[in-house]
């Protein structure tokens, strides 16, 4: 179990490094090396650490552990082929974690990051509509069953492309520098991460690494299906590059514009799922 977690963490940080590299190249910068995020995480582990005087100390420290804990749990669910609703539940808890990070310190910058993370909760709704679309076809939400369904009927990416698009938007909202990434906007220093430094920041990197792997992996599993390990790695890298291009080529929206856009997408998805449900599912 430990090797898998470490591998997922390492891979996730590399993917984030790749993201930075691609974005930098698009902007005609050399960019940091691909393993930069990994180096960051390692560096912060040995930095001096303390808890701010104004912070709610237990929460300040505990939320880091909670963040790591939920993503490890999500990873284990993915490995076990468990229920996709559990994974998305954990994904939604990431909001709470961001909120906890932002608010527990008492810093106004962190607070704004936290408040924005609450506003951006709209990004979760497309997720559930796409889940509903998937359930209409597979009649189950266990990852195993979804993969088995795709082995028979071909990838869901081709069967329900709008659902894949909606989920892609959700992934996008968790990428640094994307159009929906209002939570970490640079006008807020580092958003919810502002006050967590030293060891805690290293914990945040662990969180981010695991999160990236889990989300991309889930996307691949749900919309493309089971692949050999090398295949997974290649598809995830390709997906990451697509995401990086999207991030680099789109402006960052204001928080409420982002909410509006995501709500509109949700509305469109609802209509789409309604149409599928009304027409009946083939097969």
């Amino acid at each position, binding site marked *: 179990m430990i090797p898998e977690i470490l591998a997922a963490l390492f891979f996730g940080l590399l993917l984030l490094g790749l993201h930075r590299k691609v974005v930098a190249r698009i902007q005609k910068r050399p960019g940091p090396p691909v393993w930069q995020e990994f180096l960051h995480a390692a560096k912060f582990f040995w930095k001096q650490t303390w808890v701010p005087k104004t912070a709610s100390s237990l*929460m300040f420290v505990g939320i880091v552990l909670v963040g790591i804990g939920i993503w490890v749990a999500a990873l284990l669910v993915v490995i076990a082929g468990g229920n996709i609703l559990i994974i998305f*539940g954990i994904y*939604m808890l990431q909001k709470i974690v961001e*909120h906890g990070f932002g*608010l527990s310190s*008492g810093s106004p910058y962190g607070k704004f990051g936290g408040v924005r993370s609450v506003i951006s909760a*709209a990004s979760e709704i497309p997720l559930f509509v796409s889940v*509903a679309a998937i359930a209409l076809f597979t009649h*189950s939400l266990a990852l195993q069953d979804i993969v088995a369904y795709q082995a028979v009927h071909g990838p869901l990416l081709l069967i329900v492309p709008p659902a894949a698009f909606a989920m892609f938007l959700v992934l996008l909202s968790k990428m640094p520098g994307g159009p929906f990434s209002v939570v970490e906007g640079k006008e807020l220093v580092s958003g919810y991460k502002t006050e967590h430094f030293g060891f805690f920041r290293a914990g945040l990197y662990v969180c981010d690494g695991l999160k990236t792997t889990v989300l991309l992996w889930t996307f691949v599993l749900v919309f493309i299906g089971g692949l050999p390990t090398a295949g997974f790695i290649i598809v995830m890298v390709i997906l990451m590059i697509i995401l990086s291009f999207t991030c680099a080529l789109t402006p960052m929206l204001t928080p409420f514009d982002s909410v509006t856009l995501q709500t509109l997408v949700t509305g469109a998805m609802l209509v789409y799922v309604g149409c599928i449900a009304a027409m009946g599912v083939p097969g």
Partner: protein
Amino acid sequence: MIAVGGEPFYYLEFGDIVLYFSPVTTTLFVLALLFTLFVLASRPERQVDIAFGSDAYLAKVITPGELHFRKFMATACGLASMGAMVTGDVFDFTLFASLVGITNIGIVAAVKNRHVQNAAYQYGLVSLSATVPLFSGAAMVAATTGTLSLIELAKGTYPAVPLAVKSFLVLGIIGEGMAPFYAAKAEMFRAPGAPYVIMCSLSSLLIFLRVVEIAMTM
């Protein structure tokens, strides 16, 4: 077999209302429990505000009375979300949801800040009007299927629940505190007292997860 949430492995009976623990409901229940304990154990932070025009800054401190009250509300909110996670009855679920709604109001209403109170009031109005679609949705489920038990509904032997009825339920839950109505909630979140405010957010996210499961089960 509860199609969406996996096979339940434990039933807890309260007369006609049966709580069931399936992989999904149990996970959500445990998450609610853990966060409630976490929130109970932590002390509120001191929120720092910068005083403009000078180098000074102020830290807001929560008084012991307010602290107790909000801790109580946060605990009630946690218990309500735990109940909503595992209940196997549609009407019971809507009741738990409205309990979550009102505890959320309580958590922020205690803050002495005009802006926050205004937001809390508007949110309270929404959550009060959300009981209309919630309860009518549950009643229509009973009328069109003849049962309120999710365990029975999941068996598939009952008539299908009309889509409009499901939308009523989901809309009700959305009104109890989900996006895009989050905008009002976000203002509430400016209140100091991170551990308690987090409970608002947690409970509505969990309840939304659960209503998705319920809507897909029916």
